[in-house]
């Protein structure tokens, strides 16, 4: 059986990759994908830590399930926003989105 530590390291690496992607990617869709990857990495970490618990990982699974559900809802919202933004502006690059700028 693969020790949980490996999964935790994998989760951290995936999280870092996603974070860097989120910071550097120009397209809103790609940013959204990176966000999803981050939630997935967190879910993986929960699952890995859950395995070390005495209940055999049920708690970790429960939390991961919640994360997946919230992630799904988030994708729904995020995609809707991206689509509406795209319809209005004809492109979805994070560089040009600065309407909130002071």
């Amino acid at each position: 059986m693969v020790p949980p530590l490996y999964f935790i390291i994998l989760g951290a690496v995936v999280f870092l990759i996603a974070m860097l992607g989120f910071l550097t990617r120009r397209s809103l869709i790609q940013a959204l994908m990176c966000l999803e990857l981050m939630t997935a990495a967190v879910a993986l970490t929960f699952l890995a830590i859950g395995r070390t618990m005495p209940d055999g990982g049920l708690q970790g699974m429960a939390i991961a399930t919640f994360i997946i559900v919230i992630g799904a809802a988030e994708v729904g919202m995020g995609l809707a926003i991206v689509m509406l933004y795209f319809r209005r502006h004809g492109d979805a690059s994070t560089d040009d989105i600065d309407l909130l700028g002071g």
Partner: protein
Amino acid sequence: MIIAALVPGLPAAAAILLVIFGRRLSEKCAWISVAALAGSLAAAVYMLVAAFRGGGEEPFVHATFEWMRIGGVNIDFGLYVDGLSAAVLVMVAAVACMVFVYAIGYMHGDERFPVFFAVFSLFTACMFGVVTSSNLLQLMVFWEVMGVCSFLLIGYYYERPDARKAAFKAFITTRIGDMGFLLAVAAMLGKFGTLDIPTLMKHIEEVAPEMQAFLWLMCALLFIGAVAKSAQFPAYIWLPDAMAGPTPVSGLLHSATMVAAGVFLVLRTFPMFEAAHFLPMIAGAGIFTAVYGASLALTETDIKRTLAYSTMSQLGYMMAALGCGGYVAAVFHLITHGFFKSLLFLSAGSVIHGAHTQDIREMQGVGKTMPITAACFLVGSLALAGIPPLAGFFSKDAVLASMLGYAGKAPVQGSIILIVGLMTAVLTAFYMFRVYFGVFTGPGKKYHESPKMMLVPMIVLASITAVAGAINLPGVTLSLAGLLEPGVLEQAVPWLMALSAGAAGAGLYIAWESTHLRAALHGTGPLPRNLQVLYGGIFLRPVFRVSRFLREMHMDQIITGIVVSPVVWLCELAAKLNPDVLYTAVFVNGVGRIAGALAVVDVRVVDGAVNGIGRAGLGIARAVGFVDARGVDGAVNGVADGTIAFGGVLKRLQTGVTANYALFMIVLGVAAFYVAWWLVR
């Protein structure tokens, strides 16, 4: 076991490679898929040989490993290959190999060529996965990924609105069926605690007498999934529209693989359907779909849609055979149908490639200038019609024999099914040769024969189609029946064979007559003899009228209406129950009325008192105002100016650029983490 894993593994690996390197290799990348599939085919053949060696008794590959463990429930992931899987695997691998080679020629010059092959490879991997799954949940995972791939492939020309619509229709319709499948899987996991197919089947056979109702419900739910995937009667609506995808897609998905997956699901869980006494339902639904699809195909003018209706009809045939207990017959027909329908689709694609239209009324005399395509289409049509000695004749005869066997058990239903089955055989020959005579024979324009890359796979499939009937010769041990049901030797029924060949011949003859009749009516051919006109009047007109009536009923739109319109209606209702309107009615108006009443009290009583106090207050305020203007204002203005100046500095942070915010968030998050770490320690 490793060899069994290679079958789905190789195309999956090819799909991943194509995603990574596809763009760089451009059109050469297709050979990765073809090589992977050739490997799969070799592995599948190896397993078929091993299955024959083992006498088909025990599954020779049944390896599982733990996939997940939730509380006390284990779900395994594994491979399960028995005679059924091996036979279907070889057919799927062979057809897929040919279709992939064909697609290299057909998709030549397409700008998203690597994407197409990546999705196509993934699809094939999932079909292999469905066939080799040892676990119902695992089967369902592959089944769903296959659905996604079919969505992507049908909607491959997504710039065309009809392709987009067709992709959505196919996906949503099959998803509705998948609901049934999912419910059945969940309920069985809850009830029996395992989803391992052989274990589950054995367990169900033991407990069947006590839980008939539950099992019947499970079968019904599973069957809903199979119906949607295999385009059976109420859910067939997606199949004709799915022809909007590229022709190789139809040649693989809508002949040998995806639509066959529904039948395969029933085959895989056959002991359960048997134990629950669910088979008569399947027989009825199947035979109805068979005759319904055949009659719709009669008046269709689009060559690919005709083939789609034909697929639906033939799948109905397989279901009917299953319902009649003809397990071997269904597998046999599934395999031969995979070959010849794929051949027909590829030939139709070749015609479309040359003629640049899909309308059979606009194609004439294609056979003169595209002789190889015409020959391949002829072989496919003869096989589909069930003319001996092609593959379709033997498998159709096996299906009819199983219906005959059912008629022995239940005379009334059985004979109805057998008669309808024979009628369908006539109709099948009729609509196929209506297309063949109309498109390929007679005088016509000059067309270009397709490139070799497309012709070679067609020729290979045609030769397989010609001889595939030999895999299940009655009375031979080394045959499909020997593989699937060892020990039971089927005997041929000569009079039924003659009858089925006769039915096919009758259909062919009617098609011939009707083509001449039409040619005469259009003034392009000699007027047939009076006797033939009489034939046409008596036999053809009612048949065509029924077919046209069915078409004008627009059953698919009605079904779409029943499925889709409630959702739309609910959305509209929700829109009408808009909180805005509700709030206005309840709160705004109600409050307004109360306010009116209070206003009367207010003016009479309160105003008097208030005015008195007001006058007193005015006096005091004047005194305070003097202090305020001098002392307090100065202080307040000072603070405001300071704030504005500070805000000017902070404003720089609010760039509005998302990446900057993200960076702040992450930096602050890390900082907060360190603070927390430091505090806790």
